[in-house]
């Protein structure tokens, strides 16, 4: 599959999708205008709307690659991202930078700046140097900082920012021996260490469509849609659209959104969303017992993550499939590392799409190794962990922590001769009233996946006893993972949860009651339009509500008086 082919396919589909999205956008404008009566002044609005989003490690890396080239090495360990409300994207609007974290950012910044200015890159990336008309290279340095500053801060540098970069350049030149490139590297590392690069900082402006209300300014819009759709920094064309004001118009915004979504790089954005949605960063710490699962080599986990993401991209982006089919698809990306665990012969080294036969026990992403091994223990499967993941990730139905004094001894004893299978062991959960309230929501689905061991390998028995993989979800009975996938595919909670998660991801914050209207509209549109994820994302980014600054909840009069120090 080539990038051009993806490009053409996506463009063609958008011709069809565009009309419905435009109608939706119009409806959203009207809805937003109707709601404008209740908006409050911008100062209050700013108090409740996060304006700083720390770039994720993936976004930082992609931004550097886009600005300076993929051969610039980003070496070092980043401070971990934080998962809030199920998403790292939401955590990005709550975290700051610790001292240890900043030390890393500063060190990484210096290694990047040194590479950009080294002899191998300076010609292309700096593009000028000391010359007859500019003997110390000062004019060149200023031009460079203005140009690269626009890319790094995703807006033009302000006068004092340029002045500071030049002061840093002058200081470095004076103290480090006068070399142009050494000084340029030092000052560049300052820009890279700046919070304006490490954080995506949003700014607002008066909303021309809603008198008295605020909306994101053009530069902030460019960053928001770029990091959402590409998981990376805006390119020069998008920044030009911000500069011209085009992003503040419906037509100009739609043109850029369609361009970004038609690009092969939209796949990066989609992968980032699904990686976060499925909590795949947790796979970084998955390890399996090599004695129990000898086929599960260390490299399997990374390839398993890649397998599911490739499967998703193929179905939802390349083929513009129905989101729900992720739970039933027999198409899977496969490579030679993973094929032994699936017990299928695959000789090629790279990736290729593989189709499981109708009688094979694999269908849907829940039967892939990333999900199965990721929600298991190092040495055995876990019906409860898998069931919990399905509830929380796919159904947006959080499971509370277990009661503190629960006695697991009977339910989990793998050596008890009477409790040979996971089903027999977890049945005791369901016999205990306190446990049952949560376990009946998790275990039946997890038990349907018991035909796969802790490494995701298929099996028909546990300890010599045939596995019973039957269960029921919301009145739909199933037997085994394939039928479970079918039941989940047709369960409206799953598609509704995807919409809710996509909206949280897109906003990078928790949803509030203010978002209920937008959420309801998106859910309806998603189901009536055929469950196409790109259409959902497009509907979000073309909605004026997406750029509106969330107003503060109006305080009761008495409380407002107290806050203002009024008497009586």
């Amino acid at each position: 599959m080539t990038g051009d082919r993806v490009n053409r396919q996506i463009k063609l589909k958008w011709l069809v999708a565009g009309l419905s999205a435009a109608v939706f956008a119009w409806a959203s404008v009207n809805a937003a205008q109707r709601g404008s009566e209740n908006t409050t002044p911008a100062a209050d609005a700013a108090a409740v709307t996060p304006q700083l989003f720390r770039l994720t490690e993936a976004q930082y890396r992609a931004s550097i690659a886009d600005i300076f080239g993929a051969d610039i090495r980003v070496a070092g360990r980043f401070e971990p991202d934080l998962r809030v409300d199920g998403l790292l994207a939401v955590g990005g609007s709550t975290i700051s930078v610790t001292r240890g974290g900043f030390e890393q950012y500063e060190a990484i910044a210096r290694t990047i700046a040194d590479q950009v200015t080294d002899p191998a890159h300076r010609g292309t990336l700096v593009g000028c140097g000391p010359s007859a008309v500019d003997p110390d290279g000062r004019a060149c340095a200023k031009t460079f900082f203005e140009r690269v500053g626009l890319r790094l801060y995703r807006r033009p540098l302000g006068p004092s920012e340029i002045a500071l970069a030049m002061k840093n350049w002058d200081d470095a030149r004076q103290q480090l021996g006068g070399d142009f490139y050494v000084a340029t590297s030092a000052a560049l590392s300052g820009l890279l260490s700046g919070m304006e690069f490490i954080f995506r900082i949003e700014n607002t402006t008066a909303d021309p469509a809603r008198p008295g209300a605020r909306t994101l300014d053009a530069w902030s819009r460019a960053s928001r849609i770029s990091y959402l759709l590409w998981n990376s920094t805006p390119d020069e064309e998008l920044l030009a659209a911000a500069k011209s004001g085009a992003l503040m118009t419906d037509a100009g915004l739609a043109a850029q959104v369609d361009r970004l979504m038609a690009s092969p790089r939209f796949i990066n954005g989609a992968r980032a969303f699904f990686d976060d949605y499925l909590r795949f960063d947790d796979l970084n710490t998955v390890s399996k017992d090599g004695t129990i699962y000898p086929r599960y080599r260390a490299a399997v986990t990374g390839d398993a993550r890649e397998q599911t993401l490739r499967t998703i991209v193929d179905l939802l982006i390349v083929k513009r499939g129905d989101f729900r089919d992720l739970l039933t698809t027999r198409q899977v990306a496969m490579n030679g590392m993973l094929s032994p665990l699936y017990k299928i012969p695959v000789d090629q080294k790279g990736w290729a799409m593989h189709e499981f036969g109708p009688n094979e026990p694999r269908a849907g992403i829940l039967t892939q190794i990333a999900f199965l091994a990721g929600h298991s223990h190092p040495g055995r499967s876990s019906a409860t962990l898998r069931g919990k993941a399905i509830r929380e990730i796919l159904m947006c139905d959080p499971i509370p922590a277990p009661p503190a004094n629960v006695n697991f001894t009977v339910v989990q004893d793998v050596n008890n001769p009477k409790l040979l299978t996971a089903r027999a062991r977890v049945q005791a959960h369901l016999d205990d009233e306190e446990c049952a309230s949560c376990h009946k929501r998790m275990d039946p689905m997890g038990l349907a996946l018991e035909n796969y061991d802790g490494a995701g390998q298929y099996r028909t028995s546990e300890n010599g006893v045939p596995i019973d993989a039957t269960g029921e979800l919301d009145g739909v009975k199933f037997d085994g993972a394939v039928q479970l996938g079918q039941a989940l595919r047709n369960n409206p909670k799953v598609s509704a949860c995807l919409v809710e998660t996509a909206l949280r991801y897109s906003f990078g914050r928790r949803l509030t009651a203010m978002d209920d209207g937008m959420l309801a509209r998106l859910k309806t549109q998603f189901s009536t339009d055929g469950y196409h994820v790109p259409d959902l994302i497009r509907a979000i980014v073309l909605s004026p509500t997406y750029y509106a600054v969330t107003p503060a909840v109006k305080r009761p009069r008495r409380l407002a008086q107290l806050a203002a120090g009024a008497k009586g």
Partner: protein
Amino acid sequence: MLRGVMRGGAVVLALPFLDYFLDTNGTAIAASLGGGRMPVRFGTWFWGCGMIPGRWNPTKAGSAYDLPAQLAPLKPVQQHVSILSNFAVPLEGQANSPHYSGNIAIRTGSAAEGWQKIAAPTLDVIISDAIGSGSVFRSLDLSPSGNPRTSYSYRNGSSQNAAIPTPLEMYQKIFGTDFHDPNAAAFTPDPHYMVRKSILSGVTDERRKLMQRIGAADRARVDQYFTSVREIEQKLALQLEKPPPAEACRVPAKPQEIAASTDITQREAGHKVMADMLAMALACNQTKVFNMTFSEALAELRSDGSTTGYHQSTHEELTDRTLGYQPTVDKFATQCMGAWADFVTSMAAVKEGDGTLLDNMLVFAHSDVSFAKNHDPNGIPMMTAGRAGGKIKAGIHINGNGDSVTRVGLTLQQVMGVPADAWGAAGSRTNRTLTELLA
């Protein structure tokens, strides 16, 4: 930084940000090192999944306490270790959140259901704020787990101090290119540090405007960012000065990388390398505060080839009727105490002044539960090691008789010079110092 609590939420006023605009060079801070008395260092050592009370709690109080089976590995270092048994975690009407409530209460003075909901910084952060500023690193957060998230050091619920997760990364961070041997004869200030420091100290009009227009939550985050920048500036300032000599400092060799593992024997090996390296980091004045997290609260440790890990075993293993306890759990818990004994040994092996490095340390070890099988938050095992420069007793057993764990946290802060006369939230707040521990 000013802190308060308004309607249950922490409020942080942005004093450090204002402070940030002031230009300081950190000279005074550097002068606090060396010059006579050895600095007293504070650290925590954490292991997950607690112990089996009947196999861990000594029966005899005071000095020459008995060593039940799970404490047997401490025999060679018993004179350095004090046992704090039978202290309670006041839940203040909150649910006991398994593996969280007890750990959080011990570290923050108030139980919470999860780290994201904590109302105050952890003990180590409070102490680091008080004493950490004269060192190259304000704190070193370490774990041999391979996972940077294996850390229980938090500024607030959304600010976790991530762990350095492998021996090799630890070496590179402390003894890599930025390290200055305090005993080297020559010292030439590297102007690169001056340039780096100067670059970080710059403030633009655009940032000032930003601070005026952002909301309170974002402002607190920006404030924290600037505090972090400021601390790195101070570190760079220190690196421009000749470090005071440190007689016990011997620069360690670069370690072989030990693959991070959940296998407990391999974990112990990685931990030992990191403990030895930490001892030298302390002796070489690189930090005065540290956290070593041996295993996670939900201890992921296991033994290669076994289908059931430590945490699972605590809940699933049947009590052996002959022995009267869970044998696998007992083995894991005892091995964790072996790792703790290794740690103490590493610190005690370094001669410093008239005694050892450990004599000038206060190490606080604790777990997240007592009896893991039922997540008991009362009687969570706690210990100290070292004498804090002569301020505390070592080698004694104090039975808390159900007193609040906040007494321990308060005492640790006071010993380390934090001006606190009371500690803990709501009903668990106490002003009662654990005087039995004081020398």
